Every structure is written in C-alpha cells, then in structure tokens.
C-alpha cells in the first residue's frame, strides 16, 4: 500500500497563493526548516542507502560481512545463472497468482455485497477481517490450518475422497500454498477498496443500461467494471507491490523450500544477507537492485499502459 491515486489538484490554486507571498529570507529559512526532518529521514535511510547498495554490489564480503575487496561485476554475473533465473521465474509466478486471484476473489465478493440487500454490511466487515493479519500471524495460522494433525481442509478433502497433498512440503504445491495464503491476506483490503468503488457507481447509468436491456453479468462487465476502473487499478498496483515484496509468508511457512521451490527475489535477498549468518551482502545488494528495477518497470507498464484505460470521472 504505498501508492495513492489522486488526480492532480488544480495547479493554479497553489500557484496563486504562492505568488502572493513575500520572498523574505525568514520565510525561506522557515520553509527549509519545515522540510528538513522529512528530507533527513528519507535522505539517510532511502536515498543514501541506494547509492550504498550500488557500492556494496561491487564488493565481496569477508567472514564477518565487511565489504573488503572490489569484485567488479562478479555479483551481477551470478545473476545471469539458471539458479537466479529460477528465482525470478518463481517471483513472477508468485506475483501473478497473488495479483490475479487477489483482485478477482474480492471483486467476486464485493459485487454481490454492493447489492441493496439485508446484512451486506456485516458481510463486508467479516470479509475484511483477514486485513488485520500480518505476514507472520497469517502464516502461522495457515500452517495450523494445513497441519495434518488438525487440518480442517484435509478433513473436507477426505470427505470427498481426495487425499491432501503435502501443502508446504511438496515442491509442486508449496508455491501455490504460500501464494494462496497471500491471496487470503490481501483480499480483505482489496474488498474494502473495491466496495468503496462500487458504492460510488452512478445509479442513473445502471438504470439506463437496464432500460437498454443489459442485465446481470453483461451489465457488470460493460457498465460497472469500467466505472470502478480507478479502484480496480488501485487494487492491482498495491497488490503487485505487496506480492513482489512478500517475505514473511515465505520465511515462516516454507523457509524458501522445499528444495528452493518457494525462493522468491526478496527471500533470496534475505537468505544471502541475513540467513544463517550468510553475510553475502554484495550479492544481496545486487539482487536488491534487480528488485528495484523490476518494481520500476512494472510501475511504468502499469501507469503507462493500463492507466490510460482507466476511466476517471
């Protein structure tokens, strides 16, 4: 959740008020004073570390993790290996599952909840509850949900004659399981976002389309969906960022395993730098830079391509 989509406020408003002000030194000093705390914060802990990450990515670490020798682009060469390709592919798979299911599922709940029926407010509050969970709490609860000794899911599956897979221990299933838990986690917030969007849909337009003979699904896909496209876009962007940056679920549920099957980009950063005192800060920094580039690329695509289709009123 780190991007809010707000149409630019009128540029004129701010300008006129600014032009009327005197340009006294005291005024400028005060303006600087006000901006210093925030600037110092992001400067020290976001901008500066970014340059440091570039520096670290060209350095090898000694046993204690101190960056000592210059290794050139060696760490980046390690990023051209099949192992890292595997990590990227798994990150893409994870992100794709979470974004698609994490937006479609809440939409399939928000649409009926927006109907003028009794009890819908209760349903909305109930469905938003997973939003209260953090990565570690959701992971632990779901580990219990899937623990063979008590799993209600395995019990239901057995009733219908299916034997449950090793959710987190079978390498074919582990990724889907961790992604599924993430979908559960993000669906609460997305449901709230999409419900808010649906509440703002213009009643007159819906009525007009009903008179024109559109109904049910046709109406939903051709009228409602375009009208809530801003909230839909907001949900897609925030969910992409959340998925791309997920660590807790992977670390708590599978610890990257089995056999590296759930090792994503962020998990690889954690693993190389901090896990088991690995202290390979150079490689982790190089991977961090890849994460930054991937994030920026996705944002460019989402804002450049998809947002053009978003219909703002």
């Amino acid at each position: 959740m780190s991007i809010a989509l707000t149409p630019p406020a009128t540029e004129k408003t701010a300008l006129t008020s600014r032009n009327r002000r005197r340009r006294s030194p005291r005024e400028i000093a005060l303006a600087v004073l006000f901006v210093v705390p925030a600037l110092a914060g992001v400067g020290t802990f976001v901008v500066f570390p970014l340059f440091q990450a570039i520096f670290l990515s060209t350095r090898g670490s000694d046993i204690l993790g101190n960056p000592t020798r210059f290794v050139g682009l060696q760490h980046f060469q390690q990023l051209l290996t099949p192992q890292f390709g595997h990590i990227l592919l798994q990150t893409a798979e994870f992100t794709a599952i979470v974004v698609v299911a994490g937006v479609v599922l809440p939409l399939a709940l928000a649409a009926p909840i927006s109907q003028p029926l009794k009890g819908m407010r209760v349903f909305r509050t109930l469905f938003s509850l997973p939003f209260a969970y953090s990565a570690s709490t959701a992971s632990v609860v779901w580990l219990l949900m899937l623990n063979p000794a008590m799993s209600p899911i395995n019990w239901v599956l057995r009733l219908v004659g299916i034997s449950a897979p090793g959710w987190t221990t079978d390498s074919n299933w582990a990724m889907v399981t961790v992604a599924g838990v993430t979908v559960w986690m993000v669906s609460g917030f997305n449901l709230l976002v999409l419900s808010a969007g649906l509440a703002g849909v213009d009643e007159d337009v819906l009525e007009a389309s009903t008179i024109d003979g559109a109904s049910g699904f046709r109406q939903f896909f051709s009228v409602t969906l375009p009208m809530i496209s801003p909230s839909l876009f907001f949900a897609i962007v925030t969910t992409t960022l959340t998925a791309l940056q997920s660590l807790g679920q992977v670390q708590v549920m599978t610890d990257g395993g089995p056999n590296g099957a759930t090792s994503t980009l962020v998990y690889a950063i954690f693993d190389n730098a901090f896990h088991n005192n690995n202290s390979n800060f150079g490689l982790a920094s190089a991977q961090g830079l890849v994460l930054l580039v991937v994030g920026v690329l996705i944002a460019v695509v989402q804002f450049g391509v998809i947002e053009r289709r978003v219909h703002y009123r």
Partner: protein
Amino acid sequence: MSRATQPSKTSTTIIYVWLVVAAIVLLFPVLLTVVGGFLPSSDLLQQPPNLFGHFTLDSYLSAMRQTTVPLLPAFVNSLFVGVVMMVSQVVTSCLAAYSLVFMRNPIGKLLFWIFMATIMVPYEAIVVPNALFVRSLGIGDNRLALVLPFLAVGFGVFLMRQAFRQFPTELRQAAEIDGCGHLRFLFTILLPAVRPSLTALAVWSFLQGWNMYFWPLIIASGDNSLNTLQTAVFALKSNEFGDPAILLAGITITLVPTLLLVILGQRWLIRGFTAGAVK
C-alpha cells in the same frame, strides 16, 4: 443504490448462498485463531479441530508466562514501534507537505520529486545498507534501532501534500490577511480541515509499524529483547509447535489492535487512501 436495481428472488438466493459459503471458507482461520487460544490442545489436535470444547484461559496464561519468547516485552516493543512511527511520520510529513504547498520554497518542486522517487524504492532493495548502518551505530540493543529508518516516509509527504492542495485558496488568503502566521494556520485551520487524510496516514503508519516483520527479524536476531510481537510469534512457532493453543493465544494477543482498527475504522481508512481513486 435505489430500489430500481433490487435483484430478483433467484439471484438474491444465489448471492446469499455464495457469500455464506465464501464466509465459511475464508473466515475459518479467523475463527480458529480467536477460539483456539481458549481451548485445550487436545481439542485442537483433532481432525477437524473441535472448536466447541471446554473453554480455558490456560493457554493465554502459559503464553504470557513462558520464558523462551517473553511476550510482554515484545508487546511493549510493538507498541513502541507503532506509536513512534505514527507520531514521527505524521509530524515530518505534515511539516514537509506544508513547506511544499504553502511556502516559498525555491527548490520545492525538486524536493517533491525526491520524495516521490523514494516511494518507488522497495524497502527490501536497501535493507542491507540500512542494516549495516544501524548496526554500525552501536544501538543494536536499543529500541531506537527498530524505528530509526522509518521516522519519515515519502508516501506520507505525498498523501499530506494532496490533502493540503485541496484546501481552498480563498480561506488561506483570508487567514493571511488576518495576520495568521504559518504555525497558527497549520495547527488551528489546516490540520483540522484535512482530518480524514491525517487519520488515514496515522492509522496506516501504526499498522505498518505494528505489522513490520523483515526489519525486526534482522535487527532483533541475536538479541531477544528487541523482539516485536511479529517476530515473537515466529519464535513461538519454532519453540512451541507442539502446542497450537499457546501459539493461537499469542497470535490473538498480536491481533487485538489491528482487528479493532479493521472493525471500527475501516471506513475512514479507505476513504483517506482512495479519496482520489474512488471519489
């Protein structure tokens, strides 16, 4: 919505059936969390778990009493992180946004784009240099290490700037003519006027702090006294996996503030964030 689009009887039935089925599937983990901590493990360790067993407070007491992963200091740490991040981010964001919108700032535009650019940087990309830096400060055993990198955020500056810019110019000019200085204008007129955004930022910051996982995991490793509830739950899982009831009691303690926020505050939380997107 008006009555004109009241769904038909058949679709009403389908809607209720779908929602009830989805609720059972999606909310069973919530039910398990909240009820599980009050049950003896023997009721939980069945397939499916028996959620209608004998209620007992034993698991809560053992969770609070157990010494390998003490929960009380972790609770204090989490509260510290959430509150400090909330206060600091609100203050720094409001001041910076005010400077950008209402003051003659010669490089205001450049500063704004710096703040915007920092929003794009995923925290995980810079976590390594930050960890090395904070460790090198020698405050590894101090709570300050848990919050230091998060005292200001670009997102907060952006959110408050958007809110400030919607404040009517005429009112600002009227205040100025009346001789209202910057600080008085900010505190007595502007901030009360943008309360929805302010609340949204405050709640968002608190949640970020309370739910933070990666950073405390790195910083607290090696020093148990810096555990937050989030990392404590993970440690509890490694230590007490045999006793799901204690684990669920610990998780419920962790969830109390966030559950309250989601149940009581969801409307203004969403309104504050999606003000522009949703209208």
